[in-house]
């Protein structure tokens, strides 16, 4: 029997705003416990929620990027339950009237694209952080009240890879819109998923299993794939899938039961009486959308149009700070591809070795662009520029010009006359290669170019050499 998996994802995103969702305490700057608390976050009696404007702007931007219908009036509800990390005994959320609904995102699938529909996006607040020890737990209220958006997809996903792509697409939107860091390992993006399977062709959904505790994008794929397999085996052996909550155990690669799903918890939702409805004018919503920083997809298009390869674009865009660095240097070079090249190879290698992030790079984009230009129009070879770059990275006070001087680097010879001199000498010394080239052996050209480079001590422009060599070889008779 063939099964089809039906998967939905619920993603919680921590917003990186300056203050919290409903209180003006600072949001997420300190790792010192219980130092970022307003009275509301501790749920002291008499404290009241006041909605954060930037959180609303962020939510609007994300909703818009997801093609959602945006509600121009904000309503909030209370979700009532008791838990150690919930100071008020309820969470303020948007149950009845989410700020956005009925949207979608396109993900890449083999053969093209697939539309994943999104049911809703709403704002809510985060809970305390709990640190568990042997026989006690410590509560840190810094995180209590941090703004969240929750994005709920419809069950349009069909396998672990699609789910991972979807989550990454969401991550890209929240990161590039300036809403969040989107880091699963740090908890600023959290993913829960519901997985069920049904025999192919059946309309009715199978029993849903919820999976929590997934802490990386790769693990989304792994957890779901495992779960699909687990459920398939169950059904094939005649056992039912039990409705439950499971957690993904990275070490074993398995999902493990956390608790059986009893009757869904009754949260007794009702309208939050301390927040009167907030009307968002058309101008406010339009302005929020207009001022949204450029998103991933738009940047990707731009980079590709500027001549970058897909893989280069992917690498740069995987780190928004790298992308920002790249964009600052883009207008200062002839071909952005060259700049991308330096970033992806030399700069990345440097950052990895020094375990630094690009924010700590002791080199401004303009300076790197200067070095790139030396290759593009200054007649230097890539290797020469790489050497200059390495020296400048070691001595950030050194300008590229100074570094070039100190390294005694001289522009490559591009004068065709000079190059022809080397070419003729090499051809004279390697008659067999001419024969090989004429016989169609591609290697021969490369060999000859190499010989010319050797003879000229690397001081000629290899592209020029190749061009002129070919011309000359074509002229000669076999």
């Amino acid at each position, binding site marked *: 029997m063939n099964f089809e998996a039906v998967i939905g994802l619920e993603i919680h995103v921590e917003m990186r705003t300056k203050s919290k969702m409903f209180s003006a305490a600072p949001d997420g700057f300190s790792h010192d416990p219980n130092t970022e608390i307003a009275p509301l976050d*501790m*749920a002291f*009696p008499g404290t009241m*929620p006041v909605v954060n404007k930037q959180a609303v702007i962020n939510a609007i931007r994300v909703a818009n990027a997801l093609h959602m219908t945006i509600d121009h009036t904000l309503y909030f509800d209370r979700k009532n339950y*008791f838990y150690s990390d919930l*100071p*008020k*005994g309820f969470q303020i959320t948007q149950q009845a009237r989410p700020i956005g609904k009925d949207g979608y995102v396109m993900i890449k699938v083999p053969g093209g694209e697939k539309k994943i529909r999104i049911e809703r996006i709403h704002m809510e607040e985060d809970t305390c952080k709990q640190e568990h020890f042997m026989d006690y737990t410590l*509560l840190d209220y810094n995180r209590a009240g941090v703004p969240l958006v929750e994005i709920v997809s419809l069950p349009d996903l069909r396998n672990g890879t699609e789910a991972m792509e979807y989550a990454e697409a969401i991550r890209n939107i929240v990161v590039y819109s300036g809403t969040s860091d989107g880091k699963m390992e740090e908890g600023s993006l959290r993913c829960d998923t519901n997985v069920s399977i049904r025999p192919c062709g059946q309309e009715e959904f199978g029993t849903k299993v919820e999976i929590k505790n997934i802490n990386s994008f790769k693990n989304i794929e792994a957890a779901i794939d495992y779960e699909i397999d687990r459920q398939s085996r169950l059904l094939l052996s005649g056992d039912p899938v039990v409705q439950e909550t499971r957690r993904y155990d990275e070490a074993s690669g398995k999902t493990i039961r956390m608790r059986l799903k009893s009757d869904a918890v009754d949260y007794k939702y009702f309208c939050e*009486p301390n927040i009167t409805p907030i009307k968002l004018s058309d101008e406010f919503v339009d302005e929020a959308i207009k001022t949204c920083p450029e998103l991933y997809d738009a940047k990707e298009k731009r980079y590709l149009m500027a001549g970058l390869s897909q893989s280069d674009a992917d690498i740069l865009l995987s780190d928004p700070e790298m992308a920002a660095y790249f964009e600052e240097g883009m207008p200062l070079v002839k071909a952005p591809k060259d700049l991308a090249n330096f970033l992806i190879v030399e700069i990345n290698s440097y950052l990895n070795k020094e375990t630094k992030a690009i924010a700590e790079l002791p080199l401004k984009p303009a300076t790197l662009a200067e070095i790139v230009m030396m290759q593009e129009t200054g007649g230097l070879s890539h290797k020469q520029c790489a050497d200059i770059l390495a020296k400048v990275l070691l001595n950030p006070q050194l300008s590229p010009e100074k570094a070039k001087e100190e390294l005694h680097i001289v522009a490559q010879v591009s004068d065709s006359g000079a190059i022809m001199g080397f070419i003729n000498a090499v051809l004279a010394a390697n008659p067999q290669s001419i024969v090989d080239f004429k016989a169609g052996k591609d290697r021969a050209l490369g060999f000859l170019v190499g010989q010319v480079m050797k003879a000229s001590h690397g001081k000629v422009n290899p592209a020029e050499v190749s061009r002129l060599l070919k011309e000359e070889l074509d002229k000669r008779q076999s």
Partner: protein
Amino acid sequence: MNYIDLSLKELHEALVAKKVTPLMLTEEALKRAHENKDNAFEYLDDEGAMAFAKTLTEPEKDNPLWGIPYFAKDNFSTKGIPTTASSNILNGYVPVFDATVVAKLKAVKAVMIGKTTLDELAMGGTGTTGHLGKTYNPYDPKHERMIGGSSCGSAAAVSASVAPFALGSDTGDSVRKPACYAGLVGMKPTWGRISRYGLFPFAPSLDHVGYFTRDVYASAVLLDVLAGRDNRDATSSAKPIDRYEEDLNKPVKGMKIAVLKMVTDSVKDEEIKKHFYASVEALKKQGVEVDYVEFGKDLLESLYATYIVISCAEATSNDANLDGIKFGPYKGGKTYQEVMFNARTAGFSELIKRRFVIGSYCLMRENQEELFLRAQRNRAKIVERVNEILKDHDFILALSAPSIAPLFTQASDKLSDEYLIADNHLCLGNFAGLPSISLPLGYEKGMPYGVNFMGRAFEEKKLFQMSSAYEAITGLAETSALDPKEAKL
């Protein structure tokens, strides 16, 4: 007779003339508070009040509240001063911030003497359910009659002339009913007119900051200070505030009043009814138009249930933060659930627990439509009716209560079948969020009784204007248990 027994206006004049100082007033208030036998106080801040009063040496002529002592109901957050909402679950809780109204009063140099008792967590109407036990009515030295609630302590403090005014809160009638039983002016303005930041919530959609004074003038000038937008309370109104004493004692000719016929008719006490009608006639003599209006029997009979459902449901949620973990007595336990369970079982009184179960039950998924949402729909219908009446009338008038303060033996906090429309109509002011003021009318057996005016949203100035006319008719301005004035009617 002491300066502290003067009307607020006269007291201010005496302060400006330096005939008396804030320190003297504070000392007198503290003395009376310590000697008071009505069990009205949770906490007396001798040290803080005296220290603050000592700093007030130069009277501010244009500040009617300068140096005036007052009390705050113990459900207002007061920085550094224990605040318990008269519940054991908050024993020892010392807030780290002031409620906005407390901060405003401090800014105009009023002197907070201490905190007063209330029905636990403001959920009650008898003044008997606070953790310190019954609060008594200063008008009844035999201590047989209640003062009502939930703002029992504040009402007692002002009617015993311990201080000229006291803050209370009003969710169903918790300022205006005890005001009636204690011969006071009890004011509840429009919803959102006064910031609730720092007021422990009972049912936010019904909660109002209110207060007690002994005359209308004091009530009006107090609103000047307390009213206004507060960005820390998202429900507080941005509508500009008024000078609320501006139209006091101006003619009320041409104003229109709707008397709730059924409420008045259902009152059995003929003496009280007689005086009520006499006061209405007196208003008519001043050119006020009076209509006797049918509200609607079904709606009136549904008020109490609607109030219980909505208020208990919201309260259950609001008080879910009381778990002994962040504040309040920590009772220990083997799991976090046990920790919360032990604190809440020990800390809440039985009445509160019953109310919470009712509230929770009404919000349950299977019941919510039929109970909670239905009550909210009924509220909409009730409010529509109120506003309909107020389209053609400036005020709605009714007796605040059908009788003088009941005997303790007469009243119970259990839900009872005995339903008196005349006892349960004040919540109209909370459902509709409209400004509503209780004013004394007369005495029976030496115990006060009074009336209630309700006006249109944000028309407090007009409400005070009518109130001053009514006050002149009854002659009961400044009446107190220490020195009851003679009723003119």
